């Protein structure tokens, strides 16, 4: 909320709070620094998703060129999502230390060579290695969420995170349409099939390079400047890696959210990898139709993940953090029920219908998760975001290895069992409790305040040096997470 008497609205195109974070989210504006950073981050994340999932739609050609077996293809698919597990953790750390602008531009540029060199793949082993390295780029998810959480105020942070994350994830669906199109154009221009798929990979590679340049030259870490500037001028102190890391790993809420995110986002990635084949084999649709159905699952991200983020902010207005947690649990559990159903329905029409509703719920749950993450820690926001994001990929690896590898379970049984696992693992959300706001089942602890929670992340010597000032402002601004039963006012702290 704006503090009266200050000149903030004149400095920024959007309304801001005391940390200069935007309190409004204007989708069709590109005003620096807030909305411009939003567009830069979702676009670059989108290109990373396009690159990581560029191979699946072209597999019918690639598998002949490289003489791949079904096992090779399955392993490459798992490799593509497993690289990001640790990359997301590393990215969280880098964001905390160097800022999201430099961290994400660096990662996008560093993974672009892997995309370009996919055109050189000559064997199943090199194909797997290249998909593994390209998959590291999915860590830009963390920088996206971190950046949005740094620029947008608690009242719109769920929306900002949800739209940025959702429109980035869209790349996974869009690539199923983009890559075959690029391939067809190159074949039309006269190249053979086995050359055309290789040349097609230059498009995602170029998109990545261009977006990295955009981030570096047009983006800004924080409303008041970049990390490097602010650190040199002393406005922002350079934090210590050890403190940030210990703060993150000792916060149990980060671990719980990492687990539950594995059962919304992880499930989404698994479905991206297996669903086209499922429809192709079970219902005898042709490859094109199966690909379109698979694409539509990913394309639902256009509105369903943002919808989850917006829903989180909406319920928080009245019910605060407890509302965010309850809504997350409900939506993700319904997603689990729909997953169980998906494995059970017998007709094509019913399957497609269930799949689409399922996609909305599972992606909304992703958006709802990142309505909670920005509040878990202020000092270690990057690593917490990285842990949660990494947990998502761990979930994808686990579900694919347990249920969708080899012939232990039929695909439909695997889908149903995955649904059961979603329902079971989502129950742990009930264990999340914020002393100042409460949890799903228990109310807030007596006398606990937001300051107690966020300022306690800093030791007394650090507080003496004034390092905790940003956390103080954040505590103030997050008071609205108490819900409407407590009227939030800027003057209620000593």
């Amino acid at each position, binding site marked *: 909320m704006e503090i009266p008497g200050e000149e903030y609205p004149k400095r920024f195109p959007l309304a801001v709070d005391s940390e200069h974070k935007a309190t409004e989210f204007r989708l069709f504006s590109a005003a620096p620094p807030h909305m411009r950073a939003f567009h830069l981050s979702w676009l670059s994340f989108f290109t990373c998703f396009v690159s990581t999932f560029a191979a699946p739609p072209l597999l019918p050609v690639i598998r002949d060129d490289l003489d791949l077996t079904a096992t090779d293809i399955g392993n490459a698919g798992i490799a593509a999502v497993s690289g990001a597990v640790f990359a997301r953790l590393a990215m969280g750390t880098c964001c905390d230390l160097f800022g999201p602008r430099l961290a994400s531009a660096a990662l996008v540029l560093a993974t672009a*060579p892997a995309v370009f060199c996919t*055109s050189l793949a000559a064997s199943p082993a090199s194909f797997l290695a290249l998909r593994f390295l390209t998959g590291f780029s999915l860590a830009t998810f963390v920088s996206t969420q971190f950046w949005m959480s740094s620029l947008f105020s608690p009242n719109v942070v769920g929306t900002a995170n949800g739209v940025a994350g959702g429109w980035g994830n869209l790349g996974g669906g869009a690539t199923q349409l983009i890559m075959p199109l690029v391939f067809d154009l190159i074949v039309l221009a006269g190249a053979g099939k086995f050359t055309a798929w290789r040349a097609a990979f230059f498009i995602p590679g170029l998109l990545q390079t261009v977006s990295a340049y955009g981030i*570096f030259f047009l983006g800004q870490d924080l409303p008041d400047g970049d990390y490097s500037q602010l650190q040199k001028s002393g406005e922002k102190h350079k934090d210590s890696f050890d403190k940030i890391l210990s703060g993150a790993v000792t916060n149990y809420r980060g671990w719980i959210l990492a687990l539950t995110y594995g059962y919304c986002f992880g499930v989404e990635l698994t479905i991206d990898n297996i669903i086209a084949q499922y429809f192709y084999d079970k219902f005898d649709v042709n490859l094109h139709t199966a690909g379109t159905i698979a694409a539509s699952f990913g394309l639902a991200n256009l509105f369903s993940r943002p919808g989850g983020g917006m829903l989180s902010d909406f319920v928080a207005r009245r019910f605060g953090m407890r509302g965010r947690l309850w809504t997350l649990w409900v939506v993700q559990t319904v997603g689990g029920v729909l997953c169980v159903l998906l494995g059970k329905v017998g007709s094509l029409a019913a399957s497609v219908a269930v799949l689409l509703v399922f996609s909305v719920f599972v992606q909304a749950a992703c958006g709802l998760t990142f309505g909670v993450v920005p509040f878990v820690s202020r000092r270690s926001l990057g690593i917490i975001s990285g842990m949660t994001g990494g947990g998502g990929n761990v979930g994808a690896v686990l579900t694919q290895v347990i249920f969708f590898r080899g012939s232990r379970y039929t695909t439909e049984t695997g889908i149903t069992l995955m649904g059961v696992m979603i329902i079971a693992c989502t129950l742990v959300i009930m264990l999340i409790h914020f002393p100042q706001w409460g949890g799903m089942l228990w109310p807030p602890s007596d006398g606990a305040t937001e300051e107690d929670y966020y300022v306690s992340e800093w030791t007394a010597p650090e507080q003496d040096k004034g390092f905790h000032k940003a956390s103080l402002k954040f505590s103030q601004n997050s008071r609205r997470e108490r819900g409407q039963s407590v009227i939030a006012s800027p003057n209620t702290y000593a």
Partner: protein
Amino acid sequence: MAINGVIVATILLSCLTATCYGITFSSLQRSLEVEASVKADQVLKAGEAKITVSWKVNATYSAGTESSYKTVKVQLCYAPISQKDRGWRKTVDILKKDKTCQHTIVERPYSASNNTVTYTVKRDVPTATYFIRAYVFNAAGEEVGYGQTTNAGKSTNLFSIEGVTGRHVSLDIAAACFSAFSVISLFGFFFMEKRKAKASN
């Protein structure tokens, strides 16, 4: 009389089954003899090598059905070793769903003589082990017979084709250049960032 009835009923039922489920491979007679100029275990290069295939009717099997042959289709088919762990090349008895033979050598109207073709292996034929099979179709477009260069177990007389890789020197150079550009840009960014931070101090 009763036996006639049973025979008629069986024929009708099998026709019905055939049309309901599609023609199966196991129902076809091996009525053609197919020969190819390729020797067993030979390795051919896609885009360059030529194969000469010839086929003729096998007198012991055809038994007067030759008049129903309207079209012949000769194809390159995957040997079992190239089908292993590759569901998209699976052999299924129902011919409509069978994916064993995916590359057509020639498809033309059937004639009793001059049944030979010289085929240059196309550039999009992938690296794999193959045999050659020819199907003959009736006027309704249904398979009514086949012949192949290998035995029933598909274990003899197999040959390999080495596919075109699709890699190009120009692609290699482009990939190297763009990758180098990205890495150099990365170092450039770090350098510029350090300079900017020093300047703002």
